[in-house]
């Protein structure tokens, strides 16, 4: 009995340790490689030594060089603008819709909700080619509009916020109505503040989705002043054949903001996943 338990414990330990290594090794290699010279990266791999995963020489200059060699700073700026604008306006539009769906009865409400659910399951990528046709007809290709407008609605946010609002007791709103508050005032002054945790969850998920988007921004925009970071870094790799340390540094720049936000707010992030998986 106790021997089989020990064997089991060891088995579990081996499985989890190897999976954790599988996940961590590429990341650690990337971070440490971003602080080395290329020759050092190759030397540490051939033969492989533990130094491959330690940023031994701290060549911080890598992070300066990449911005001089390629307009990555412009790409970064575009990503910041697109992501922040999308998330902020998105939170407003999506929470307003969630409030409408949760608290008001009107013809077609059920249809709108079903549409939200269907689009939630249907990844955005499937629409890229027709979306290109549409934006071409609307003449908004190669503008910030093309990068922002199609991504504003985040069905997952509407779903989460609607769920959350439905669990809030209506008594506060009713007394506010009696005091003569408009529905918009109620939304702004009562619903939104109460929704804070759900807003963080929804906003975080929307933020990460927008920051990481690749396929649509690749097609929507050609002008180099409008290219976002995720696309720009691929052009960086293809166009000037950068050294590995530079490619690592550019990757870290794209990963770090999102990783920091994730670690700080992972509690909220996990809650969002949990809710979508469990509820219908």
């Amino acid at each position, binding site marked *: 009995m106790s021997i089989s338990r020990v064997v089991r414990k060891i088995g579990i330990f081996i499985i*989890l340790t190897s999976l954790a290594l599988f996940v961590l090794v590429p990341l650690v290699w990337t971070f440490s490689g971003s602080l080395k010279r290329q020759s050092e990266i190759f030397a540490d791999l051939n033969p492989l030594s533990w130094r491959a995963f330690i940023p031994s020489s701290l060549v911080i200059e890598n992070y300066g060089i990449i911005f001089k060699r390629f307009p990555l700073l412009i790409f970064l700026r575009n990503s910041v603008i697109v992501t922040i604008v999308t998330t902020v306006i998105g939170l407003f539009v999506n929470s307003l819709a969630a409030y409408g769906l949760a608290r*008001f009865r009107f013809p077609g409400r059920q249809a709108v909700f079903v549409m939200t659910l269907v689009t939630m399951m249907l990844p955005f990528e499937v629409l890229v*080619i*027709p979306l290109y*046709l549409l934006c071409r007809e609307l003449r908004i290709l190669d503008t910030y509009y093309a990068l922002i407008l199609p991504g504003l609605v985040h069905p997952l946010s509407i779903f989460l916020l609607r769920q959350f609002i439905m669990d809030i007791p209506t008594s506060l709103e009713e007394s506010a109505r009696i005091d003569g508050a408009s529905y918009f005032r109620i939304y702004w002054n009562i619903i939104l503040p109460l929704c804070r945790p759900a807003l963080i969850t929804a906003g975080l998920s929307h933020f990460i989705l927008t920051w990481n988007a690749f396929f649509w921004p690749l097609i929507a925009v050609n002008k180099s002043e409008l290219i976002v970071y995720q696309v720009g870094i691929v052009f960086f790799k293809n166009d000037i054949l950068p050294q590995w340390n530079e490619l690592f540094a550019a*990757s870290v720049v794209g*990963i770090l903001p999102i990783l920091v936000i994730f670690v700080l707010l992972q509690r909220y992030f996990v809650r969002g996943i949990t809710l979508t998986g469990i509820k219908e």
Partner: protein
Amino acid sequence: MARLTREKSLWGVVFVAPALLLLLTFRIVPIFASVIASFADYPVTQGFKGFVGFSNYQFLLLDKDVHNSILTTLIFVSILTFVQLALALLCALLLKRSSKTTILLRVILFSPYVISLSIASIIWWLIYADMGLANGILRVFGIRRQPFLTSENWALWALIIMLLWKGFGYWMVVYIAGLNNIPESLYEAAQLDGAGGFKQFIYITWPLLKRVTLFTVVADTTINFLIFAPVYIMTMGGPRGRTMLLAYYAYRTAFVYGDLGYAAAVSVILLLITGVVTALEFRFFRATYEY
């Protein structure tokens, strides 16, 4: 009173309107647009040139590249989805109890999910390079250098391993939530009846997890059918079409060969296949127990 309800329902419409408008314009209309465009001759340089009936689809039926692409995509999606979810469920079972260690491990296993697919592809492109990390590790075990991404045997597997790395932690979190939703009393009762861990899994966990599994299977399948960035960044569909997934094939048809009508037809086929496969999954995984 009637006036009041009518006014109230009007406000509901007003609040939903902006999201509804955007949803219709950028999610619903494009679906119909792609169906319509698939019946058209639509070169990217000259724009819409008129309808051509089913000729895009006729062409598609005879196109060997499309057949190869559909087959590759089906193999890729089945393997990736199955391994990803099996690994996710295994980890969820091992990490479902909350302690400092398990929470740390969960965060670690989940972390690649927040990294963009494009940067993940660049990192793995370097890992798989001739002088890269994967070959460095193989050398430790005395295995000679492999041409991962340029090998006809390896390339699709290389993509699958990379996407496994990226995604299984996400589904693990979903499964953990599902597991913690199963009433503890059922396990206590099973234990009293002398059922071991394996029996408990077969008779309690798996049946009661069916609803969550339906969600993970359907959602993971749709996502995997549409994988694009890794192919674009790491293999360009090669070597010799071995990684020519449909989403990338549609992109290439549209923006490299400039044939938007044909690309739309390929997208429609992709959407149809995804729809059929998920419908089958719905039938197969429909929950039979409620709790």
